[in-house]
């Protein structure tokens, strides 16, 4: 079955599965978002930052990337921590 516990995933592969899918999603999200919103109309609180349009796209891209990377990381964490094993550990600590 798909039991990946007990198996050591190298750090490099962990990075790939977290950063790479989120990278692809970030490209799609950036494309969708900025085709709907023009960054030059987007400064909501009259922010006093000097940032050009390309800068805004870049920033948006990295925000999307970070958000999806967090999601990927949580998914990876859930996938490699075996719930049954945690359960077994806990019951072995109980008195019965």
């Amino acid at each position: 079955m798909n039991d990946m516990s007990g198996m050591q995933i190298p750090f490099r592969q962990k990075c790939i599965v977290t950063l790479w899918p989120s990278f692809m999603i970030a490209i799609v999200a950036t494309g969708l978002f900025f085709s709907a919103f023009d960054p030059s109309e987007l400064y909501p609180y009259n922010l006093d930052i000097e940032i050009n349009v390309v800068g805004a796209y870049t920033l948006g891209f990295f925000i999307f990337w970070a958000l999806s990377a967090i999601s990927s990381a949580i998914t990876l964490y859930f996938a490699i921590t075996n719930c049954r094993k945690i359960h077994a550990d806990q019951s072995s600590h109980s008195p019965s």
Partner: protein
Amino acid sequence: MNTADPKIQQSLYARHEKIYPRQAHGRFARLRVLSILVLLGIFYGTPLLRWDGHQAVLFDLPARKFYIFGLTLWPQDFVYLAGLLIVAALSLFFFTALAGRIWCGYACPQTVWTEAYIWIERKIEGTRSQQMKRDKAAWSWDKFRVKAIKQTLWLVFSLWTGFTFVGFFTPINELAASFIGFNLGPWETFWIFFYGFATYGNAGWMREQVCEYMCPYARFQSAMFDNDTLIVAYDDMRGEPRGPRKRSVDKSAAGLGDCVDCTLCYQVCPTGIDIRDGLQYECIACSACIDACDEVMDKLGYDRGLIRYTTENAIQNKPSKILRPRIVIYAIILAIATITVFYDLSQRVALDLDVIRDRNQLYRETNEGLIENVYTLKILNMDDNPHAFILSVEGITDLELFTDVDNIYVNAGTVSELIVRLRADEANLSAQSASVSFRLQAQDANHLIVEEEARFLGPRK
């Protein structure tokens, strides 16, 4: 192939050892080189083309306009780009079902740039065995020199790639001017290095690992496969039992198959697999092993094609079919999607009208006792020429239209806002809310016409 199998997962995540593919020579190798040169030419050449006084292909992000030769797309036209992407994905499905992973072998950017980097590596570091020997040897001045030259060439090539990539998004001649003058903007610099570094890493270092660990297509392509899909395969009925022999030996007398176990097919493989073990997930159908094996067969005077393009059925001596339900269905879906996108694109009107009702007031009664609604019209002229427009409205009997300007004139590629008042007699309103339709027509171009619906509100009935 079941990737959920823990054993396979284990091997997928196993420690990586560098693969030194031996150079293959032959008809498929030539075809591949041709395809790679054409594709690289398109990538590096396209941003340099000009069209009607602008860069022919420019995804002008700062100006939020996409130029594709004669066509100018706006953010409003995003749907066409999405449509084109869907068509591209469907073609990939279709060609995969038909011809297997030809995309991987001949056209994927990963393959194209990897081959380019391997080419540089071979020019500097020499053949497979020279490379392996040097890498095993201790560091010496000569080893350092060779490695340094290779890395420098790789880096320069990467930077050129990154530069060209950014040149698709900001005008490349301005980019080149600021590059030479050392005053590139921070974001452009960042993206040149980012994309250059990605190319360097993927094509110089990661190579087949990108296909194995990172490529979504490689994971799901087998879903499009059936027994009639074109694959690269080893004919084990013909090849086995394998074994070395002298050229003078009669193979059938010695009880041998055609495979001389020279392992050349394995040595040329860029993904480091032995095709004689059967169809494998790692195989990108680059056909290098076909060329390698054909060369050996030629030398021995055996028939070519011990490893060849074939189908699962053909290898088992069953008939192969090209026209089968899967192919027909993919083809029909692909045809419908393609026709729809290109028809819509050909019908595209370079004019957009947005009607926004005045938010402060539902309606107003004028001194003459008419019901008045106020709207803001946003007119986007996406055409390459300025135009004067005629505005009309219908939907209610004797509906009157007033604007605060005499001429509606919008420059090329700009948005213009217009306040519009509509007045109607209450007697002509059958309900509290009626639908009205604005029509905007360019005076000098019949095809530039759009209609937009809006609500007209009156007193409660």
